[in-house]
């Protein structure tokens, strides 16, 4: 069977998702880019996410060439870089949130900044900061030998992506390589709010489960409580990114808290 099962005991992401599952609901996962509009604000917003109902938090590392991101996140990360954000500050953000909350905190990063620091060094520092693991939008298991080794060494989760275009064989391979959960891309496209959730999302989740995934969370284009409610019907977790970035951009930490509270209503169990 897949490694997803074998290491459940040590996976912070799996534990957070299982806790939500025990409450009879899917997990809520919120994304924020580190350093936007500043490092302190990211920490405060991350804490607000956790306090208002997010089970897992995804902190993005601003990168010069974010090919999987749409306009809103690009604008935010470009601004963070222009203000002088440096990669090592992501560990301050992770430590700042994990020291104040019980949420599992993952880092979402394009791969070159990790290579530049050194995969082992990056993993060690993430582990020391209390981080749960990495979500890697441009790293596929085929190229991940170094990361497999380092994540085992430091007990970090490896969240790879699966897409509507993934073949059954690739689906199996990716599920087997993942730990914590598998990130199901809901649509063929980049990050950004959309008016409705793609019907492809349900099929991707089903395919990932058929390939042996224990936990599958859905992201891309999820922005409202009704999207969250819809996806929670079939997925183990729901990932919201762009809407939260727009919230912190327009209304700061208070707006993040308010949106999180609203998104969380999508996960409340139906009144009997």
């Amino acid at each position, binding site marked *: 069977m897949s490694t997803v099962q074998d290491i459940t005991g040590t996976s912070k992401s799996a534990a957070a998702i299982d806790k939500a599952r025990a409450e009879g609901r899917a997990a809520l996962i919120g994304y924020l880019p580190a350093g936007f509009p500043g490092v302190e604000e990211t920490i405060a917003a991350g804490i607000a996410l956790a306090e208002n109902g997010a089970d897992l938090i995804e902190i993005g590392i601003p990168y010069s060439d974010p*090919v999987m991101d749409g306009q809103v996140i690009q604008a935010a990360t470009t601004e963070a870089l222009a203000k002088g954000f440096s990669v090592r500050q992501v560990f301050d953000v992770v430590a700042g949130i994990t020291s104040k909350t019980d949420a599992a905190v993952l880092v979402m990063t394009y791969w070159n900044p990790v290579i530049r620091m050194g995969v082992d060094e990056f993993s060690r520092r993430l582990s020391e900061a209390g981080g749960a693991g990495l979500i890697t939008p441009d790293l596929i298991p085929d190229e991940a030998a170094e990361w497999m080794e380092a994540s085992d060494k430091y007990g970090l989760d490896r969240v790879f992506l699966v897409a509507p*275009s*993934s073949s059954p064989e690739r689906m199996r391979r990716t599920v087997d390589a993942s730990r914590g959960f598998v990130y199901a*891309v809901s649509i063929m496209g980049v990050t950004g709010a959309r008016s409705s959730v793609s019907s492809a999302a349900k099929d991707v989740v089903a395919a990932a489960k058929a390939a042996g995934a224990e936990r599958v969370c859905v992201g891309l284009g999820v922005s409202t409580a009704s999207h969250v409610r819809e996806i929670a019907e079939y997925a183990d977790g729901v990932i919201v990114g762009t809407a939260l970035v727009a919230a912190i951009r327009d209304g700061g930490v208070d707006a993040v808290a308010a949106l999180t509270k609203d998104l969380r209503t999508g996960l409340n169990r139906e009144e009997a």
Partner: protein
Amino acid sequence: MVRLMVDAPTAGSDKDAVDAFLQGGPSLRHAPGPYFGSYGGRWMPESLIAALDELEDTFEKAKADPDFIAQIADLNKNYSGRPSLLTEAKRFSQHAGGVRVFLKREDLNHTGSHKINNVLGQALLAKRMGKTRVIAETGAGQHGVASATAAALLGLECVVYMGAEDCRRQALNVARMELLGATVIPVTNGSQTLKDAINEALRDWVANVGNTHYLLGTAAGAHPFPALVRYFHEVIGEEARAQILDQTGRLPDAVCACIGGGSNAIGIFHGFLDDPSVKIYGFEAGGDGVDTGRHAATITLGKPGVLHGARSYLMQDDDGQTIESHSISAGLDYPGVGPEHSYLADIGRVSYEPITDSEAMDAFRLLCRTEGIIPAIESAHALAGAIKVGQRLAAEEGDAGSKIVLVNLSGRGDKDVATAAEWFDLLDTDSAEAEIGKEGEQL
């Protein structure tokens, strides 16, 4: 200079390895990918892997299909005008230590550069995959114009991504693409340069991969692009090898090409990689000078990393963020390089050296005045390199008149006239052309 030595790849130090290759080891000419040593691969979002698999499968079948081979041969001959000539540059040679310099005339191809070889091949593959739309990135507009040309010829919809600043400066190339029926989309994200145009093309591809082929313009990117783009440019090296043997009865002592992403270079190198007697040189854009920080000398000063789908040398800062490149030549102004070149640098088979803007422009003018050929500024980097190589050969080995240096003249310089006129101060200061030239316009 010291820094150059310290940061240079292991060229030379792995001499034993490359000697082993050359003495009966496996051929270097047809490296299939996905890896070239530790370079290459697929550092790409999962969403695009199926499309890359489809492209690889289609490409492998096409290569084995006589109909496809015949189609390419027909287009090369009757549309592009191949084989391109091999011209001995006798008066230019006098400035290169007196060695014999031969020019592979890719500037004479339809659309004015080697780019046509790749776009015709990829557009045919797009048709075989049943795709109706191609997208492309472009810096100065050369690959965009070539892509629009191939799309028009084969009846494909064409969308070209181009940095907003480049669109403004290259208004005539934008007009060319539109005349050919393409849609040009200005890219306002990030640094608004070629690398951002590639990012935007990738975003388009992820969203439209069902009906769209990404017609990548250079021998970089995720597998199978580096091997595939090389394949369509191999004709350059194969023709050049036969032509030099025919004209001189022997192989050249050295082969020179300019390197941005490296597609023209890998095309001509291909013909000579397995010939141990032939020294091979790639000339990168040294911009204002490699110690100024304003250059595009990726192999000379970069460090291995991943960008746009491949592991290769990369201009990056200590955080792994891509650094802006600078060159007078838009076609070489890219912070990455094809992975096969990184490998050939590490094993020492090819020597990569920087050429400054100033050296390139001197060679540009020299070729104009000695041979009556206006080269692309990109190709002028190869010419400047050939001058150095010729002088070195003459000094170190003597008997200059018996030495042969082959240069890939990858494109013609019509597009560069305004830049050159500004550089050499040939325009009245208040003329409209002078204003255009100041902005770096390439006509």
